[in-house]
């Protein structure tokens, strides 16, 4: 079983559109959406939720005003500036370290469970999909990503799936690191803008840092052919296989509006390029 993660560093380069097309083109797979902050894959794959599970983040501090003597010890030890001068905890700043609770001389502080989000096991016409929704303004998206990954793996093993196809989050921090852990390949979606290149290179470095194999695709490559050439050279110099190049086409946007995977919505040049990429990818994974 192979796990394929689609990432990009920069947001909006086409990760979800490409993931949805892979979901349509690959056989016998489990699908996972690890962009738990702003999940969009469901808008193309239309999952029917079969199981809904609570996800608890780290418990956060709460100060019982009836017990609090106002000694101020908690304010002094909190490194996150989460406790006000009136001895109220700001749950957004609190990182759940519990130092205040241990320090409080009158046991006025308790840790309250924090429902940080939900995750779902769903059915789609393309197979089982595991996805999630992080609560607004919550932390710990990395842990929720790990939960989604864990569940996807359980179902993949149970169903003897050949692939897990994972839509990744933007950036290079905590949720990306959790998405990368133990995948067989990270497909980095690059776009030929200076921002797109810089961001894709940073996230490729992160993948390398954790010993994960990287392959690239260039989306909207005709927006700037000079930059596309820069990317091609960079891939060559760094020994990164370039598995696909896709044209800029307004029909891609239209396929999103219609809520369908691109390769099913149309059969034009860009759709053919994505299909070709899927073939290249399968071949590459079998080596």
């Amino acid at each position, binding site marked *: 079983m192979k796990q394929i993660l689609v990432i990009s560093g920069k*947001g*909006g380069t086409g990760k979800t559109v490409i993931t949805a097309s892979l979901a349509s083109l690959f056989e016998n797979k489990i699908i996972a959406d690890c962009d738990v*902050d*702003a999940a969009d894959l469901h808008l193309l794959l239309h999952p029917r939720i079969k199981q809904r599970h609570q996800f608890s983040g780290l418990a956060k501090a709460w100060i019982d005003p009836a017990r609090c003597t106002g000694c101020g010890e908690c304010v002094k030890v909190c490194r996150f500036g989460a406790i006000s001068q009136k001895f109220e905890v700001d749950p*957004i700043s609190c990182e759940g*370290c519990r130092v205040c609770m*241990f320090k409080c001389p009158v046991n006025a502080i308790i840790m309250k469970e924090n429902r940080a989000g939900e995750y779902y096991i769903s059915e789609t016409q393309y197979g089982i999909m595991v996805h999630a929704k992080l609560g607004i303004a919550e932390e710990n998206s990395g842990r929720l990503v790990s939960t989604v990954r864990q569940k996807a793996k359980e179902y993949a093993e149970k169903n003897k799936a050949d692939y897990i196809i994972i839509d990744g989050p933007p950036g*290079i*921090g905590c949720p990306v690191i959790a998405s990368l852990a133990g995948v067989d390949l990270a497909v980095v979606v690059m776009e030929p803008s200076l921002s797109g290149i810089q961001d894709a290179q940073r996230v490729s470095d992160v993948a390398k840092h954790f010993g994960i194999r990287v392959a690239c695709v260039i989306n909207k490559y005709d927006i700037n052919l000079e*930059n596309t050439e820069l990317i091609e050279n960079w891939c060559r110099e760094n020994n990164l296989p370039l598995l696909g190049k896709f044209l800029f086409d307004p029909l891609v946007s239209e396929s999103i509006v219609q809520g369908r995977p691109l390769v099913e919505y149309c059969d034009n040049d860009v759709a053919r390029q994505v299909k070709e990429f899927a073939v290249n990818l399968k071949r590459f994974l079998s080596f």
Partner: protein
Amino acid sequence: MIISFASGKGGTGKTTVAVNFAIYLSQHRNKSIEKIFFLDCDVEEPNAGIFLKPKIVKIESVDIFIPRVNLELCTFCGKCSEVCAYNAIAVLKNDVLVFEQLCHGCGGCSLFCPTQAISEVPRQIGVIEKGRSDRIEFAQGRLNIGEAMATPLIRNLKKLVLNNSKGSIFIIDVPPGTSCPVIEAIKESNFTVLVTEPTPFGLNDLQLAVETVRKLQIPMGVVINRSGDSDNLIEEYCRKQGIPVLVRIPLNREIAHFYSQGIPIINVKEQYRDFFAQLVQKILENMSHQTIIDIEEV
């Protein structure tokens, strides 16, 4: 005054709108504005510098403090690992392991160690780079490769707001998403501009961003980027929610091309300049009365 540019979804044009807004303000600024600061708080993938091309004059290290255990003083009692909420420290029979990447730097282990065997040492997670781009004071955070925690870097960048006078305008480029780094970047803003695109992805993520900004009770408005035939998708939602649409920037290949080269569109065409004139005007109209007085003369 702080104006932040956020989106929920990545790649909708936050940086484009924020950068051009900053340039517009810097070119039309009068004496009531002391300084214009641009803070790139997308520390995982900072891109504003590509467009503003600042001259960086100062680089500061951002560290978090992680435990270092003096094994000669340690009695292996296990207190440190008991108090650690992040499983970042493990006590064995005659050794103590610290998992640096998991440590949040809360200081609990050293505080509660009964034999004072734990001291704290700095570990760099990223840098803050400061400089100037024409008439804009520029600062960006840059998270080191392999580091997980963006929030401490953002917190550090935002110290610039505290350390400068209220007569300045701070323009904040916010990372995508809705979780802790976003909150850290947005909070204390006087106004948040949400940049979206007229697709179901754009709408879905805009809704999440709106909930986030509401939770922080910050006034907001929407910019529709890559505007075109499907705008009603966003407009209808904004109407129902009572959120003003501030400006529409059309979907066009020329804009995408200038973007790809790192050229701010405001310097390209009069028509593009007008988008940002309108944006400034609309933000002023939609801010609370109190804040309008502060910058009325812009």
